[in-house]
């Protein structure tokens, strides 16, 4: 055997050497172009907004006494989590029928800081008034550095619980049913020790208990920080790729007794990993089993296809949702699983970095295509960095509209907000049907365009008036509470799909037939970026005055029919009480 001694060569991977050098000049082609479009310039969408047009939303946070102010704890260290923090959850924790608001705060990563701002829970008193009940509820945290949350009744006791992701140990708050919560993280075994971001409750093995998936971002600690710079030449936050430390995501199996088992490795989820930020859990290939899509930042996405035996296999590449149409990984932030063409297959819409379009992966029977359409939902997104995202029919014209919460991750040479170099206006696009969208004027649907560093956004009908409102967490800024005041083009109906245990039937399909049209919605509140939305499904119905028939495909695949229903009301759909 002829062999000479070896010493390390290929495996010598210096930190910091990340980007391939390519002068990447062509918008939309450049998945990891380092040169954003005119950094800091005022985007065209902002310049051309028609301020005379009717607003769709009214900012009501101050009047509603929703006075949460996010704190990233940024103190000049440029620690990466400071740039990514901020999620929000909508949940009816006290069962009064109104959605309450849980805001996740960053806090401080500096171990010497003693007075750390925590998370906040605001009780919805109705009539657009909120009350800070954090202390009474016991959900402020213990000084963790918060990222996001998801809300669901994991133990089926009728109370919506809250799971909070952090840099470090996450927290599971069990709803005691009396307006208070208990931190059951240790007993439940779902703490983890990574940097959790978006997360979702879903029943992947069909045993009737909600399991938990947590996307993890980076293996990070202050000692691993690096020095990076913005285009303006100032010290700034790094790209996740600078760290070369993507983290494995976590899957916890709900054992049904209030405890969970970490099944990440046995489920095969350690076989592929990236810088995970966005999560959507749904049946993407129509086999009746729930899969997991993870939007990774600057790395290929994962689509974990459920094999039905407790194992998952990443098929994102062959199924066409790992990278863009040219094979380029993009900076995935938030994700929405939405049936855009209303055919019963969930498409994936992922928000991205400035210089990359927000991307739509259209689902064709389990196989996706990176849909490039000049008037698609990604249009106009090139100048912005998108995070929170949600589709809803805000004006009831029967077409899904799109809201994207934007905010930079690197400062630009020119600022849109004199006090916040990362601020950008948010985007609102009106759905025109046929997969086409157009920018709404005024920008973001509000009279006064509020440039902020937006992160998580949650969508729901906060006043039960039949239209969808929005709550947005802004890094180092006050929360935005956007009350829907859009001029309505038609009627509406809202359904709450409830399982036999009287918990929200997460991952059920609701199909509505009204006035000759068919509308599909999917029950999955855990979408977007680090946020959890209204678990009910909302339909704008255009000119329909009646819903003839509703079909629910429950998570176990069984179908039931309900109806007819009057429009303009909120109904419950109870499993087992419909027609088979």
């Amino acid at each position, binding site marked *: 055997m002829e062999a000479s001694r070896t010493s390390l060569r290929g495996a010598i991977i210096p930190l*910091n050497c990340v980007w391939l050098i390519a002068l990447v000049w062509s918008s939309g082609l450049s998945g990891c172009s380092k040169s954003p479009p005119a950094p800091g310039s005022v985007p065209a969408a902002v310049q051309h907004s028609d301020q005379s047009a009717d607003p769709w939303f009214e900012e009501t946070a101050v009047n509603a006494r929703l006075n949460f102010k996010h704190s990233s704890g940024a103190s000049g260290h440029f620690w990466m989590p400071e740039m990514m923090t901020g999620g929000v959850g909508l949940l009816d924790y006290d069962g009064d029928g109104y959605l309450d608001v849980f805001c996740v705060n960053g806090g401080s990563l500096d171990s010497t800081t003693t007075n750390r701002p925590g998370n906040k829970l605001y009780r919805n008193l109705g009539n657009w008034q909120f009350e800070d009940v954090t202390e009474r509820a016991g959900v402020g945290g213990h000084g963790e550095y918060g990222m996001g949350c998801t809300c669901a009744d994991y133990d089926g006791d009728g109370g919506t619980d809250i799971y909070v992701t952090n840099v470090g140990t996450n927290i599971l708050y069990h709803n005691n049913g009396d307006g208070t919560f208990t931190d059951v993280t240790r007993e439940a075994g779902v703490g983890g020790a990574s940097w959790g971001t978006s997360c979702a409750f879903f029943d992947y093995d069909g045993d009737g208990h909600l399991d938990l998936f947590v996307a993890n971002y980076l293996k990070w600690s202050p000692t691993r920080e690096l020095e990076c710079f913005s285009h303006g030449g100032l010290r700034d936050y790094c790209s996740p790729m600078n760290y070369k430390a993507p983290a494995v995501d976590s899957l916890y199996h709900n054992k049904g007794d209030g405890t969970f088992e970490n099944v990440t490795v046995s489920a095969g989820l350690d076989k592929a990993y990236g810088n995970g930020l966005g999560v959507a859990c749904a049946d993407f290939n129509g086999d009746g089993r729930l899969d997991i899509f993870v939007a990774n930042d600057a790395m*290929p996405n994962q689509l974990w296809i459920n094999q039905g035996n407790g194992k998952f296999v990443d098929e994102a*590449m062959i199924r066409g949702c790992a990278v863009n149409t040219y*094979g380029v990984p993009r900076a995935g932030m938030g994700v929405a699983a939405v049936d855009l063409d209303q055919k019963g297959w969930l498409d994936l819409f992922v928000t991205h970095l400035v210089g990359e379009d927000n991307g739509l992966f259209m689902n064709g029977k389990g196989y996706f295509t990176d849909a490039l359409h000049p008037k698609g939902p990604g249009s106009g997104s090139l100048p912005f960095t998108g995070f929170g995202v949600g589709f809803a029919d805000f004006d009831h014209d029967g077409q899904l509209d799109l809201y994207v919460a934007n905010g930079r991750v690197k400062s630009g040479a020119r600022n849109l907000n004199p006090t916040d170099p990362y601020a950008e206006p948010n985007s609102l696009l009106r759905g025109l049907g046929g997969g086409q969208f157009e920018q709404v004027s005024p920008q973001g649907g509000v009279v006064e365009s509020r440039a902020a560093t937006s992160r998580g956004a949650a969508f729901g009908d906060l006043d039960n008036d039949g239209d969808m409102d929005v709550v947005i967490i802004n890094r180092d800024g006050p929360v935005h509470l956007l009350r829907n005041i859009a001029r309505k083009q038609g009627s509406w109906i809202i359904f709450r799909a409830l399982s036999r245990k009287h918990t929200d039937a997460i991952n059920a399909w609701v199909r509505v037939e009204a006035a000759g049209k068919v509308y599909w919605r999917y029950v999955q509140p855990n979408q977007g970026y680090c946020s959890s939305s209204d678990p009910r499904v909302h339909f704008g119905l255009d000119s329909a005055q009646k819903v003839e028939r509703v079909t629910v495909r429950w998570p176990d695949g069984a179908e039931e029919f309900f109806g007819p229903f009057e429009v303009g009301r909120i109904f419950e759909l109870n499993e087992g009480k419909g027609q088979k």
Partner: protein
Amino acid sequence: MARVRASHFTLDMALPRCVKLKFRGANIGRDLEGVSPSNELSRPRRSRRLLLAWVVAMALLLAFAGLGNYLRTRKPLLDVPLPGDIGNLETQLRAYIEEKVQRVRESPREMQRYATLGIVYAANGLWNEAQKAFKNAAQLNPKEPLAQMYVGIATQESGDLDQALQLFRQLAVQFRNFAPAHYRLGHALLRAGALDEAESAFQRLIACAPTEWRGLAGLGDVKLRRGDYAAAVHCLEQAVRHDPSAKNAHHLLGMAYRGMGRMEDAALELRLGLNAVVFPMPDAWSETASQHMRLLQDQIDIANAYSQAGSPNKAVELLDRALSFHPRNLALLNNLAIAYNRSGQPQKARPLLQRMLQIDERYLSAHITLSFNAQMLGFNDEALAHAEKAIALAPDTPQGYLAKANVLLAMERDVEALAALGTAFSCDPQNAEVQIEMGDVCLRNLNRPAEAMEHYKNASKLDPVFAPVHVRVADLQIKLGETNEARASLQTLRRISPNAPELAVLEGRLQKLRNR
């Protein structure tokens, strides 16, 4: 370009000539003023004066005509675009921009200087300023297609895609044989969803540049979007034959195979296309761009690319120049130290690394690079200490363990080195390169070929299209006399990397083995 300079020179010469004429005319006038008009002037004298007046008039006429022509045809004096907030730019970039702006001001009607300034801005992400500079260049020489094309590119990068598309359309009509115009137009049209027009643009690109894979890939992309998978495969297979390293084309080919239901082929091609970066069709201007990049992170990236391409001295040169602007930047110091290590000058890296530790004693990268550095200088104990320190600082990352393995190998503590590599792999279980290193240690240092093969096969599973894995597998199979297996490995290698330099050697060795 030469013609522009010549014209410019002529116009410059015209100005003094006019001035001279003017002064001469004045002198003549004064001459005339010195003599009173008189009827007593003799006829010959009078006719001389008339002749003189006529000459002067003609001269003035000519002068005015020349001046008019000059004013009509001379190149305009254009505003030099400058970032409004230049004071906020990175020091090195600011200094470089100021230098280039000064060069434009020295010769403000020279197209090439505006072009260079535009490229400087573009290379550093300042697209608004780049757009203005390219517009000036195009105005100064409307016959230069690159100038007009770059106006389109800058317009596109500034977010105005519709306007950019119009500019590319005009460019493609005006310069029908200018291949990059058709490339840019084709892609802008694809983005706009105009498939028929995009198809024509890519066909024109293929006609203008038959060896350019991007034309075929573009055409394949059009067919793919139409759902004509067989036609797409036809184009894209040609594209990857033109350039087997064209990842974008591999990805598109994978999607086309998928459309045809050829899932195995699709998986392989998608893997070959993974982590693609879009490199637009190169042109004379884009090829100069990297030399104008002055943002620190870009320079670090370029330096790393140089190092990985076997030119660490170029990396040293580049980073050393940047160091004068950023003397305390830890990332720069670290990368310069790495470049010194790689260029065989570890002694020069040492003071930089020590400076890093003075700035931040817990800086992880410093300990890792110092470990490699100390090992290169023969200070193995020190190298091991820094590796251990790195592991203590970040126990869940592979770099510290790799550094430790490196020094243990140098100390010929191979079994421990293998264990360190194993820990590194457990921190980064997707890293095929670590498995290759483990295989190499097993094979070359520990003489454990079976174990080596296992590591190589693990690497192959992790990254089935990583050519070095298949080279090693085939090499080992030939050594072990496994001819059939070796032939299969070489077939795989040929498919994924037809230009691999080891291919011919290994095939020759296999042939010899089979002939025995």
